């Protein structure tokens, strides 16, 4: 069941090729979109000016290809993304290896223009194309005992120069609580700006959880496991004091080494003002209820 959440921006605002290749024109296009769209409650176009294709695809954290922001764009072309399959196992009715094409044949791809907030205090707006994770999980059949979803990134030492170094405990793993995974905002992205998702952004399919710090949105997924217990997550394993399991965007809970109250907006230049970070990255209305009663300073 796709389309459980709607952007106020439509794909007409962004997918025109001539437009997305030029950011200034794009901003003008988005501004025109505001006039046409008129009412927009939570995600107005004024807030969500998509970051240029160039910045989205050249400024990446994908440590399997190196820790520099430009390393993924330089080296990720080595990653073989065809053929691709995803192992779905654990507490599901139909475990097995699912070919990427077979998944895509069953899923409804839609556009989602989301804020993307990195734990390093920078942000972008990305027009993703993808399907709801809930649809994929329902396809595999979630069993009643399942409480969490674990994800794993491909580990290919021959294709990924960064994994030669133990920056993290490879392969990269992430996890969500089942209700977070089933939330309509949570998608598996397979495209950006209406094109196939570039390798450096996590081809051929990656998670996007827009109310959490970017590292939760695990790339190039090869395995999804439904579990009863909270699965280990890479950054939490590397430094539990700095990175919690939840890692929800929260301007009130600082990273031990820097403030999370504001962010630098990518693509706005050397003299741009910082922008205030929003609770749950601006998606508090949609996801706040998931964490009702939880102490977010402890469950960071």
């Amino acid at each position, binding site marked *: 069941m796709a389309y459980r959440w709607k952007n106020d921006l439509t794909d007409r605002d962004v997918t025109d090729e001539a437009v997305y290749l030029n950011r200034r024109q794009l901003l003008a296009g988005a501004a025109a979109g505001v006039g046409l769209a008129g009412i927009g409650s939570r995600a107005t176009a004024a807030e969500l000016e998509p*970051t240029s294709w160039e910045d989205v695809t050249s400024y990446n954290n994908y440590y399997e290809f190196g*820790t520099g922001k430009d390393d993924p764009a330089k080296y990720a072309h080595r990653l073989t993304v065809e053929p691709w399959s995803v192992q779905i196992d654990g507490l599901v009715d139909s475990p097995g290896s699912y070919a990427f094409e077979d998944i895509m044949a069953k899923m409804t791809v839609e556009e989602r223009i989301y804020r993307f907030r990195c734990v390093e205090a920078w942000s972008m707006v990305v027009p993703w194309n993808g399907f709801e994770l809930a649809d994929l999980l329902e396809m595999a059949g979630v069993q009643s005992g399942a409480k969490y979803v674990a994800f794993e990134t491909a580990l290919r030492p021959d294709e990924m120069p960064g994994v030669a170094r133990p920056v993290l405990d490879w392969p990269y793993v992430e996890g969500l609580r089942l209700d977070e995974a089933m939330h309509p905002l949570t998608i598996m992205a397979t495209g950006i700006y209406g094109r196939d998702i570039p390798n450096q952004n996590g081809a051929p399919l990656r998670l996007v959880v827009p109310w959490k710090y970017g590292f939760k949105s695990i790339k190039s997924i090869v395995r999804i496991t439904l579990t009863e217990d909270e699965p280990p997550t890479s950054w939490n394993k590397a430094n539990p004091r700095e990175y919690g399991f939840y890692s929800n965007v929260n301007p009130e809970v600082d990273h031990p080494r820097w403030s999370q109250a504001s962010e630098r907006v990518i693509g706005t230049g050397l003299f741009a003002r910082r922008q205030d970070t929003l609770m749950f990255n601006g998606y508090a209305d949609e996801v706040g209820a998931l964490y009702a009663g939880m102490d977010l300073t402890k469950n960071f």
Partner: protein
Amino acid sequence: MALLDPVNSALRRVPAWPVYICALLYAGWLFWLGVTGGLGADPVKKLEHAYGEAGLYLLIAGLCVTPLRRFAGLNLMKFRRAIGLACFFFITVHLLTWAVLDVQRLDRVWADIVKRPYITVGMAGFVLLLPLAVTSNNWSVRRLGPLWTKLHKLVYPAAILGGVHYVMLVKGWQVRPLVFLAIVVFLVALRYVPRRRSRQAGTTRVARP
């Protein structure tokens, strides 16, 4: 040592002032790139890091001068002040970029210095360099006498703090900052290699890496 005598005498004819010019040109060029979009998607961070890194390189260069003379016989002493001041210049613009273009608010700058260990460490290193920059002139050298040499040993803890600052600020254990720190620690450790008994017995000395 005699091997390097022609090099040393040639170097004596090279002035030190181009070091200052190069430092200013490089810093200005980076800033210009930032203004005109040449530093990519996140120019503030890129500029901040480029200035900081230039400072670290120059710290290392400055720390190399004495061991190069002692262990290799290469005399770069006349460039040491220029290297040191250029280093201080880059660390100052690194700090300014961070405070003015990145953090943007004085209260937050102060909060970060107090609250964030890697910034506290970096700031401590900068503070240690201040008296060295101020006394990098002939008048101070004459005025302070032997105290000057003692005072300028502050560059050792400052350099180590700079290296630690770099290791602490990255996510995870990255190789590059660790290599920087290792080089700094090695160069400082070289200061504690005991002197040979006779300075003339140059041919019998133990080779050092």
